[in-house]
């Protein structure tokens, strides 16, 4: 499944003939016109004009008065991204937050544990993938704020570190 990235948020999406599905919402559409930098689509009876510009990795998009900027990740890009994340560890703060909404499948750390850089704190299932949430530097666990079976929101604090 490809994804779109806004800042540090990733949204996976499905797409097929005349539809896309993102964040649990399926949208059917047809393309009325496609030019360099302009896409006119029809959603049901509604017309949307999308004006866009591509610059290497980023797409800037204007529609109905709003401009947003994002990155598109193909399946291959995503695979690479996950590999690098796992190698480097992504969490450098005194708190570890959920990088995406998901289900806590396993809690591996407990209060008072001393963890080495790269050790896993919890395993979070999101978008049908298990994600190991790791510490980015040697640290002591001040508190674990979730338990197995919890549903966490994106940005919710999972673990406090010292």
């Amino acid at each position, binding site marked *: 499944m490809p994804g*779109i990235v806004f800042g540090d948020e990733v949204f996976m999406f499905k797409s097929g003939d005349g539809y896309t599905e993102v964040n649990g919402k399926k949208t059917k559409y047809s393309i009325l016109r496609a030019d360099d930098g302009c896409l006119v689509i029809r959603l049901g009876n509604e017309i949307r004009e999308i004006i866009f510009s591509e610059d290497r990795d980023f797409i*800037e998009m204007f529609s109905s*008065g709003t401009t947003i900027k994002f990155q598109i990740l193909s399946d291959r890009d995503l695979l690479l991204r996950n590999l690098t994340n796992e190698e480097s560890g992504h969490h450098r703060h005194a708190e570890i937050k959920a990088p995406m909404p998901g289900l806590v499948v396993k809690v591996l750390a407990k209060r008072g544990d001393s963890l080495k850089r790269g050790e896993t704190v919890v395993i979070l299932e999101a978008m049908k993938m298990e994600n190991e949430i790791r510490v980015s530097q040697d640290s002591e666990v001040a508190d674990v704020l979730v338990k197995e079976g919890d549903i966490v929101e994106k940005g919710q604090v999972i673990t406090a570190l010292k």
Partner: protein
Amino acid sequence: MAKHKREIKKIIVANRGEIALRIMRTIREMGKTSVAIYSDADVSMPFVRYADEAFSLGGNEARDTYLNVEKIVSVATEAKVDAIHPGYGFLSENSEFALAVEEAGLIFIGPGGEAIRSMGNKTEARKLVSSFGVPIVPGGREPIGNVGEARDVANKIGYPVLIKAAAGGGGKGMRLVKEESEMESSIRGAQSESQSAFGDNRVFIEKYITNPRHIEFQILADDFGNVVHLFERECSIQRRHQKVIEETPSTALTPQLRHEMGEAAVNAARACGYINAGTIEFVLGENGKYYFLEMNTRLQVEHAITELTTGIDIVREQIRIAEGNRLNFSQEGVTRQGHSIECRIYAEDITNDFLPMTGRLKMLREPAGNGVRVDSGVGSGNEISVYYDPMIAKLSVWDDSRESAIKRMLRALNDYSILGLNTTIPLCKYVMANKDFRRGEYSTQFVEMNLSALKTEMSKNVENNLDLAAILASHTLKMKSVVSQNDEQGGSTKSKWLEGRFES
């Protein structure tokens, strides 16, 4: 300025961007010839190709180009122009430039060098207008010598106080001091900022008016002692002490107050024997008391909303006055109709303290339609450079009531499509939709007070457009895969979709 009539046939515009273009349009309407000057960075700007003649100044830094008195006067002489229009900013309020232009035997479209000098120094200006009965903000009128003196003045008039640059404008060299302990560092900061911005480190102190509104009056004055005002503009929506949205009429003025302030403005202009177009800025307190702030001795950025409501072309009047003509209307003859709002579209990053952005405008599509005026200085593909201010355009609307003008502005803002740089458009949309603004209840504190709500609103943009982003992303991926398949087959690098388009 001479009182005899003299025809101006050819005018050099000593400015750039939207204001150069705006002035040249009027020059063309009057059947006169326009001359542009431009820096290297500006060679492909619309104002250069709009002009009848254009001269390169060479270089890019403002001091080498649009601030270079010697170079500009020499180009003007070479181009054999009759007059110079300075626009706003750059040399428009530089008395030495006005005098140099006059010495070269050319007409400076604006007040004489003397009026610029007396109004340009804020301390002198306040003394002068005060002697004509115009109220001024309580404070020391003399430049502050040292921190001790500053403390004495502040203790006398009471905190909070504002430190301002004597030679300044545009919020540069300005500091708000809430209590005595902040005074020393604020004075130092204001002095050094003033020194680098204006080459003059003198500052003065005045009473800070809480929740003030910024109201200004447009003035026109001819060589024959006729002075009229074209009503007020409210300019209270500001960020970093600089205006971003203006409207007229102001919701803060009663007819009585408007009349009084209009008269005070005319008196202030008379105080310095003012000729040509100018603007008297007032600060209006919550208690309805108003005070003279300063006079801008030039065309103002936000003059368009006055043009839309009075029907008077201010640049045309400036040129007519400079030709030695009488104003052909009296104060009673100036009428105003409907409501007008201006939004300034700057390349700025709202989420990063409104810092200017530079770069190329990849795509630009401007709003149009009934009651919409766009004064734009750039086109698609132009660069917003580091050398000058990051304004993209001024968007103004007119409609018969304030409520409908706000709706029209929202429509126009939503129609405005700019890719490549972040802009002040989200701020302008926020203001137009805000209840307090819609009720007309706001002050110069508005942006500061609403900034976090604005940022929250902007953060929802992603969520609200996720479906469209996904459609665009899948379309883009599909196009790329078509291109790469063709590449692998050693075929054309054009997509099948593109080829299909050309065949059909």
